[in-house]
């Protein structure tokens, strides 16, 4: 059975139809990429699936259960994680704390216990600090464990967001342009990182403009154009699809 099923999904803002009747399904354990020209509706699609926006019409099912219209934190409970195209890092916190926030749902969040500094909570927090450091090593930020978030560069923060998302121990992760604004060397590192995440058994949905990376990583690809589904298939199928070629040449001409 598909892990995620999207059927006839649409949203409009005023008169603008940002996503129109898009349907697709994602099997567990794969890397699924969403590509398309700027403004094609890729990020909007992510926002719809992760509960940031409510769809105007259509369904989204996770493991067969309807999840459209649910709030982001309910989706987080179901193991859905994401990163953001334009960074959403808490600049008022340290890098490590940003990652620790990702583990929010796995912790005892009781106010009174926290204020009284009870030993159980303290012990769990100490473990989490180590776990966060471990995750930062995983994404290649081992040198920044003690850094302040607001002192880190854009490329590093992109990875910090991935570490935060991984701290949720997700089953399904949405990565919104993880390589945007990175230099070629960093891009290769992110490429390898995404592979590592997928190898760890997390289903990855990727929005990315770097075609080399997309072709290299993806099991399947969805192409959006003007909010509509243009094509779907393997990398090879997409590469040869005349509609896709036309749309891309058109968009770049």
């Amino acid at each position, binding site marked *: 059975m598909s892990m995620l099923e999207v059927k006839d999904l649409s949203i409009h*803002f005023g008169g603008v139809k940002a996503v129109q009747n898009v349907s697709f399904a994602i099997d567990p354990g794969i890397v699924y990429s969403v590509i398309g020209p700027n403004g094609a509706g890729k990020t909007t699609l992510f*926002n719809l699936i992760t509960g940031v926006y409510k769809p105007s019409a259509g369904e989204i099912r996770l493991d067969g259960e309807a999840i459209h219209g649910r709030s982001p934190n309910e989706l987080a409970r179901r193991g859905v994680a994401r990163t*953001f195209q*334009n960074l959403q890092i808490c600049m008022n916190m340290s890098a490590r704390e940003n990652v620790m926030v990702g583990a929010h749902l796995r912790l005892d969040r009781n106010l009174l216990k926290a204020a009284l500094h009870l030993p159980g909570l303290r012990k769990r927090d100490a473990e989490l600090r180590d776990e966060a450091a471990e995750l930062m090593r995983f994404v290649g930020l081992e040198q920044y464990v003690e850094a302040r978030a607001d002192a880190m560069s854009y490329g590093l923060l992109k990875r910090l967001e991935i570490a935060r998302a991984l701290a949720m121990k997700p089953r399904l992760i949405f990565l919104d342009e993880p390589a945007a604004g990175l230099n070629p060397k960093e891009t290769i590192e992110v490429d390898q990182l995404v592979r590592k995440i997928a190898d760890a058994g997390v289903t990855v949905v990727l929005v990315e403009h770097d075609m080399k990376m997309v072709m290299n990583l993806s099991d399947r690809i969805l192409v959006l154009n003007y909010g509509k589904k243009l094509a779907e298939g393997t990398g090879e199928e997409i590469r040869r699809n005349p509609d896709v070629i036309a749309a891309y040449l058109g968009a770049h001409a």
Partner: protein
Amino acid sequence: MLSQFLQFLFSGVTVGATYALAALGFTLIYNASNVINFAQGEFIMLGGMLAVFFTQAGLPLPVALLLAMLIPAAVGVLIEKLAIEPVKGAEPVTLIIITIGASLVIRGLTAVIFGKGTHSLPAFSGDTPIEILGATLLPQSLWVLGITALVVVLLWYYFNRTLQGKAMLATSFNRLAAELVGINTSWVLFMSFAMSAALGALGGILITPITLTSYDVGIMLGLKGFVAAVLGGLGNGLGAVVGGLLVGILEAMGAGYISSAYKDAIPFVLILFILFFMPRGLFGGQSTDRV
């Protein structure tokens, strides 16, 4: 019955007009700088107090009134240059405290210079009330309403028909874009503080013959102006005018029919109630956060 209702309505729209002018002041500054100017009420107070002072000093009424608007405008510009421009981009709370600091300075100086007494200003054209269907309307109320209406029309013309006004409007939509097309946004900031102070002062001058004035009337008037601006949807000029009149009318009705002791609480109960159901006021647009 009807006469009583009309009586409350008249007094409501009269104060409501003052709130509307104050709310327009909030709106102008908010649009130009995203600052909520908590010193707005002090401009209302200053207008009234200066008008009293200059007329008592023997200046002819028009000259006195003009000065009573120009001086607060100068004070507004001073605040903008000395206290708002230097902290561009500061947190909203910081800006709130700065404008409250400014309001304390204005209020304190007024108390030192003019004393803490209550003052009145003679009505512009006599005190003989006009009878309408059993209710009475003061001639001064007509001045308040007439001039407020005139100001609203002039502002509308300014923002929709003149290049300067359009430049100010453009800045409020997108400051960076406005700068890129060559609009001097520093001048826009200057103008908005001058205009909003002058508007507040005008409201204060017009209402003083009816309500009297003293150094400490600014707080409540200003806060109610803020209520009016939020009620209409922050940043919406027409909303501010409607909000002002609505606050004035409901306050007068509440005081008349429910409890005069709770008169001052009515605008705040109203705004809480409205915000619970319409989080961006009556005419505030929807907003979607981009992520």
